[in-house]
């Protein structure tokens, strides 16, 4: 009976009732409800979305990050995409953290799938997931000392001597 009424407006209502003033930025691009919250609240909100019988977001579709160099103290955004398989609704949840001390609590205790997803996010962006059982690099070589997906780093390997830049239109 609740599943008949589960739509974006209902979810937004439940969230603002439970966490007033802390969930902000509600938007619905292409039908997907998205909102954001302070970084320290991430586990509480995910736990609420998981356990609440009216919401039941018990499937973690994806966990990734985005780097916004312009936003002061909120350069790194961690994005959680959750899915309620029973009622077939998705939701997108973002938390922002500063690049100086990017600490986010880990979601591995709620979702086992978050383990490698957080390792990949750490490998690419350098976000420190507090409480993660094994936060080491997963895709890049272990000796790499920078976080390559941040916007300031280039795509190509800078150590090459055999490329003729003039032929490729670079000066």
């Amino acid at each position, binding site marked *: 009976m609740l599943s008949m009424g589960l739509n974006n407006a209902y979810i937004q209502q439940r969230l603002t009732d439970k966490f007033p003033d802390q969930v902000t930025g509600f938007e619905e691009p292409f039908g997907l409800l998205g909102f954001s919250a302070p970084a320290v609240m991430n586990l509480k909100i995910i736990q609420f979305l998981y356990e609440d019988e009216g919401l039941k977001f018990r499937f973690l579709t994806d966990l990734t990050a985005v780097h916004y160099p312009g936003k002061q103290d909120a350069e790194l955004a961690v994005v959680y995409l959750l899915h309620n398989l029973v009622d077939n609704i998705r939701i997108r949840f973002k938390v922002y953290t500063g690049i100086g001390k990017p600490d986010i609590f880990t979601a591995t205790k709620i979702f086992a799938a978050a383990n490698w997803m957080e390792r990949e996010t750490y490998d690419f962006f350098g976000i420190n997931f507090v409480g993660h059982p094994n936060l080491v690099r997963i*895709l*890049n*070589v272990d000796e790499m000392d920078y976080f*390559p997906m941040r916007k300031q*780093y*280039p*795509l*190509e*390997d800078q150590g*090459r001597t*055999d490329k003729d830049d003039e032929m490729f239109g670079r000066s």
Partner: protein
Amino acid sequence: MTNYFLDMGRPVQFNTKVKVGNMPEGYSGEGFFATSLNKVIGLARKNSIWPLPFATSCCGIEFMALMGSHYDLARFGSERVGFSPRQCDLLMVIGTIAKKMGPVLREVYLQMAEPRWVISVGACASSGGIFDTYSVLQGVDQIIPVDVYVPGCPPRPEAILDGFMKIQDLVEKESLRRRGSERYKELLAGYGIG
């Protein structure tokens, strides 16, 4: 069971014109044939190469198609592909080699016994391909010496066969003294081997 295989829209052809390989030049008589040793060894080696398919990515699926019955690699003498470098002659590097995989490839190459040949299949193995990124080795010849490069993304199985036939040419015509020669030792020293 055989009916639908015969029903492929083209008549079944039985090959009555079997091509016989060329005999090396030599002097023959009643019950003997004299030729130089490297011609006989070349002929034997080229028709029984045991490849080690070091398949990493998409080109590996074209290699699987090559091993299938349509473009059969076994008719060139490579029925048995091995995965132990100690037993193989030809290292086929098929697919992208990332910087993380480089040391592994080098270890496998060092474990092979002489004479050994290397064929680099695909654009990624030859030069990094479309992935000009921080994590991809821009060509496998940065770490091991390569004999034949097969371009393509992925190369058709016929292209890989063409590269394989060029390796066969190299195997046939190689001098028996090459692996101990100064020039070969310099080549390996350029890669930091031996």
